[in-house]
């Protein structure tokens, strides 16, 4: 489990220190799927980098602890090995000239044996359905395929957690769905913990927990349905709830028992029952 205790982060600018995150207390259990949402500038990406071990907090502790342990110390998060981070723009994170070489890049950094690397590259290609593209140069792939290569490169390192830092925000809706489906499949099949950092609330729907960040602090946390039920906290974060949730709210004005629906299918089903 990744545990954040009283984590704050500030950066020095010419105008003085700017507090990016303040007193963040969060836990990410092994195998869980959590969404971190918030508007631009809320500190989501900084939080993702702190969780991944790429940044050290100005104060507080980010540690990997055994589940059930009351408090740190745990051990420090090792980037790539414990937590794999996938960034927004796939073009800026693919290093090698072919898909398989790119997947092998992280494994070369781990100084693994050749046989182990070959096995892991093959597994990662199969998991993301990229086997036919193994010899392709990255620039010949679609945006969704490139992002899958980035995820495969991270997965090959077998981290306990996968952090997607707005990894689908540059993709079209079908590519976005394809990537998210692949990630949720990985969570289900491998038990890998997933942390989705996004400002697209539709991506929250497949997660079991949601954290709303605004102005560097956590303003709401819990199951997506509970967080959306307390709509003020979402709006406070400068975010607009999904269309079906907003429509449910309107329905509740007329039919108070109408459930809060988070996706269209759920809404249609509830509306049919109503009629």
């Amino acid at each position: 489990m990744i545990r954040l205790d009283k984590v704050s982060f500030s950066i020095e600018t010419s105008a003085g220190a700017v507090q990016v995150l303040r007193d963040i207390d969060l836990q990410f259990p092994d195998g869980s799927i959590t969404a971190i949402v918030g508007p631009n500038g809320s500190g989501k990406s900084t939080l993702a980098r702190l969780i991944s071990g790429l940044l050290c907090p100005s104060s507080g502790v980010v540690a990997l602890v055994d589940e059930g342990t009351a408090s740190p110390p745990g051990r420090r998060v090792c980037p790539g090995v414990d937590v794999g981070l996938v960034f927004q723009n796939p073009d800026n994170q693919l290093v090698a000239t072919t898909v398989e070489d790119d997947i092998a890049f992280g494994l070369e950094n781990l100084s693994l044996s050749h046989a182990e690397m070959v096995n892991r590259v093959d597994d990662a290609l199969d998991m993301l359905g990229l086997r036919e593209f193994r010899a392709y140069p990255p620039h010949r792939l679609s945006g969704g395929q490139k992002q899958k290569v980035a995820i495969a490169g991270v997965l090959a390192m077998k981290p306990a957690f996968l952090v997607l830092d707005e990894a689908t925000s540059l993709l079209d809706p079908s590519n976005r769905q394809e990537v998210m489906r692949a990630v949720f499949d990985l969570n289900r099949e491998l038990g890998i913990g997933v942390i989705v950092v996004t400002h697209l609330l539709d991506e929250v729907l497949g997660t079991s927990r949601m954290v709303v960040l605004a102005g560097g602090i956590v303003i709401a946390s819990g199951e997506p349905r509970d967080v959306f039920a307390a709509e003020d906290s979402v709006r406070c974060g400068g975010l607009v709830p999904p269309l079906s949730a907003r429509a449910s709210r309107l329905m509740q004005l007329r039919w108070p028992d109408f459930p809060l629906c988070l996706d269209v299918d759920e809404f249609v089903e509830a509306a049919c029952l109503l009629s």
Partner: protein
Amino acid sequence: MSFSQGFVLGQHYPGSSPVHRSSALVKLIATIIVMVTIFVAVNTSEYLPVALFLLSGIMVSRIPARFFLRGIKPILFLIVLTVAVQILFTPGDSIWRFGVVRVTSQGLVLAAFITCRLVLLTLASVLLTASTSPIELTDAISDLLKPFRYIGLPSAEIALVMSIAMRFVPTILEETERIIRAQVSRGARIGEGGLVARMRSFIPILVPLFVSSFRRADDLAIAMEARGFRVNQPRTRYHLRGFHAVDLVILVFSLVTLGAAVLLRVWR
């Protein structure tokens, strides 16, 4: 217009021929030997063994001849210019005269010699890069530079930088095309007018290109760190190449080429 089309030099032509399968390090060493032979030659006849060696390599590689011809195309202007300069300005026995213009037999010989030199150099480079993937080539350069580690040269890092540079060539070209289209759609006139105006018209392309490239480099550095990369950290290799019979053949034939060129000079 696409910037990414038409440049053959540096492009990999995938295949499974013995030349493709041979060690990149051996091919790199053989290319260096061939280039040394080309540069130390003093007359056209010494290029005969080099031409034979390269033609054999091209035939065995099963890479189409048109691929090599496309490789020579970009240097045609350089060849024509060099030939013109040699023909017109080399002193010697005049074979044709028109006013102040004088063509000498020595000029023609020198022009043929330089043309052979440029064509053979290009063919050697294209054969190396076409039959070797960029990652194999950078690994080979890293191996070649390895002895210099002891004097502080970061050979592995240099190879990685080269590999990343090659990886980003198409991306930067696409970015350039995108910026040009964006600026043209906003009324920019790229490459029009006099020399100064033409040079100035590239500023709105270069500035955003530099900014985005620096941003890309920053993002890439963080992404590499996120995947466990550290400078001076030992790394293993995904691609392993042993030393096979074909490597020995290439190495021996490249040395024979050098030897034959030397013998040809001695016999003259």
